[in-house]
């Protein structure tokens, strides 16, 4: 056969995503570009209100009422924003799956774990019940639990165990893309390590793309291949995790690193950023970070910077007029 091989579509490809909510002065998401390759772990980092959670929810089209969108959100090649209800159902039960922050809020406390795990397969596919149960017990084993959990109720499991159940549930439909929204924030640090190690194993075993949404820079640096830093609905900076954290080129990334109380930073006062992110009622002219930025000039206040590749480093994109001024700064490691 001589058909030209087209490279398979990446698990996630977001282009120019713009999202407006009613009664707001600026878009909540403003031109977000983001991709996740097969088997790749990508971290989306930002503070509250940055738009990171909305970005991940838009992948399943779980949007607030009245949301108006522009751009495309392609999951394994298909645009989620253009799907009909049947396609959307197929997406949410198969191609992509989400793990939420609080497993207790996402599991019906009155149903057994076995019911919860197999429900989606039983309702949406022709899978025989025995086959669904078999798959559930295989996945429970993969996440470090035993068959016994199938007959348990959520209240009988600890938070860490329940989050493993959530991960097993997310994998039931063999998704190409796993979305994890602060999946370890509610867990103790040692439990967090277990869940992260598990996600890493599963990604290797099943080749799933993983979008990991977090506010924790240290965690993002530790687990991801690439990182996107969001601020006020825009991607401020993106690139390979190690380069981005050792040599930040957007003042906001640098400020976040300076604000984080780290074990390996010099002790003493933190480099705090004054002020707070702009609210949704503030119309933005220019760079949204300019009012809090030590490098800001008139250019920044007038003209929003476009994301541009760093000279000599096309894998890194930075939306800053003055990214060159961060070269050789104190944070460069």
């Amino acid at each position, binding site marked *: 056969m001589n058909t030209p091989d087209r490279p398979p579509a990446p698990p996630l490809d977001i282009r120019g995503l713009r999202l407006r909510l009613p009664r707001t002065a600026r878009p909540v998401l403003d031109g977000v570009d983001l991709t996740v390759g097969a088997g790749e772990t990508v971290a989306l980092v930002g503070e509250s209100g940055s738009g990171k959670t909305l970005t991940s929810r838009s992948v399943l089209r779980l949007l607030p009422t009245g949301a108006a969108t522009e751009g495309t959100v392609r999951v394994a090649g298909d645009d989620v924003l253009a799907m009909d209800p049947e396609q959307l159902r197929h997406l949410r039960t198969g191609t992509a799956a989400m793990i939420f922050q609080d497993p207790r809020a996402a599991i019906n406390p009155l149903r057994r774990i076995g019911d919860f795990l197999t429900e989606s397969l039983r309702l949406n596919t022709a899978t025989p019940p025995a086959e669904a149960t078999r798959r559930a017990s295989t996945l429970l084993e993969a996440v470090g639990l035993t068959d016994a959990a199938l007959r348990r109720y959520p209240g009988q499991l600890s938070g860490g165990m329940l989050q493993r159940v959530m991960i097993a549930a997310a994998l039931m439909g063999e998704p190409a893309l796993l979305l994890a929204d602060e999946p370890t924030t509610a867990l103790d*640090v040692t439990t967090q*390590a277990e869940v992260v190690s598990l996600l890493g194993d599963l990604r290797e075993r099943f080749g799933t793309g993983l979008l990991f949404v977090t506010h924790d820079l*240290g965690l993002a640096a530790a*687990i991801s291949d690439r990182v996107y830093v969001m601020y006020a609905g825009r991607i401020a900076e993106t690139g390979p995790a190690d380069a981005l954290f050792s040599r930040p080129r957007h003042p906001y990334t640098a*400020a976040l690193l300076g604000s984080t*109380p780290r074990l390996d930073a010099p*002790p003493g006062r933190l480099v705090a950023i004054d002020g707070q992110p702009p609210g949704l009622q503030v119309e933005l002219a220019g760079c949204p970070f300019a009012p809090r930025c030590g490098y800001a000039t008139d250019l920044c206040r007038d003209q929003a910077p476009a994301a541009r590749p760093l000279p000599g480093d096309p894998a890194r994109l930075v939306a800053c007029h003055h990214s060159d001024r961060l070269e050789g700064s104190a944070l460069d490691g």
Partner: protein
Amino acid sequence: MDEVDQSVGATSATPVLQVSGLHRTYGAVRAVDDVSFALAAGGSLGIVGESGSGKTTTARIIVGLEQADTGRVSVNGRERTGRGRGRAHRLARAREVQLVFQDPYLSLDPRTPVGAVLREALRLHFPGADHTSRVAELLDQVGLGERSADALPRQLSGGQRQRVAIARALAVEPAVLVLDEAVAALDVSVQAQILNLLADIREQTGVGYLFITHDLGVVRCVTEQVIVMRQGRIVESGPTARVLADPQHPYTRLLLESVPRPGWDPRAIAAARRALRQA
């Protein structure tokens, strides 16, 4: 553990807070099991541990929200264990130790403006005086403008609300401020502002801090002494710099290794955690 340093923090001056032999059980669970430590005047002591370690119960006993089965808590040499005798006695006790909670949404009345929150605390403890200038001073101390006196909690950001909670705690000039995960719910950029603010306040007022947290980075940033708790017991204690640089107890080592950083190995941590649990 038999090698727990009982004199943590009591190096120079008389300790402002002395805790000895605290026990508290709930049914069969030993929530607090023989906890003793001292906080130096104007010092800052961190209590680290995971959920169920007993750190919050210890804090609640110190503040007086919970009674210990046995053991003693004293502030500036005055015993505060047992039930308070009379209103004046209870108020005096409340003035000594103040508490800042994790969630300022839940600890502030949604209908009371910021200025009134502070006036109420001042009127309760110092009746009959005019508090106008003190309210302004407190707002200024925590970095809020005088205009915010009229604001309701919902009109403020999370960081601003936590500043209000800190101002209310400082209003009665406590000897000890207990901060129970007080910065855990804040975004990192706001958390940094509050941590710096707390450092400034301690320098200016000489108030002592008891910092309850799960975050070792925060402990490193704001405490001089630290105790590590696990299953109700103190497993390690000492100067923060030493404990973090050279941890002696396997649990302290596990906690430190669990902090994500580049080159982090979650698999090794998961294995170490299982080994420790079976030990």
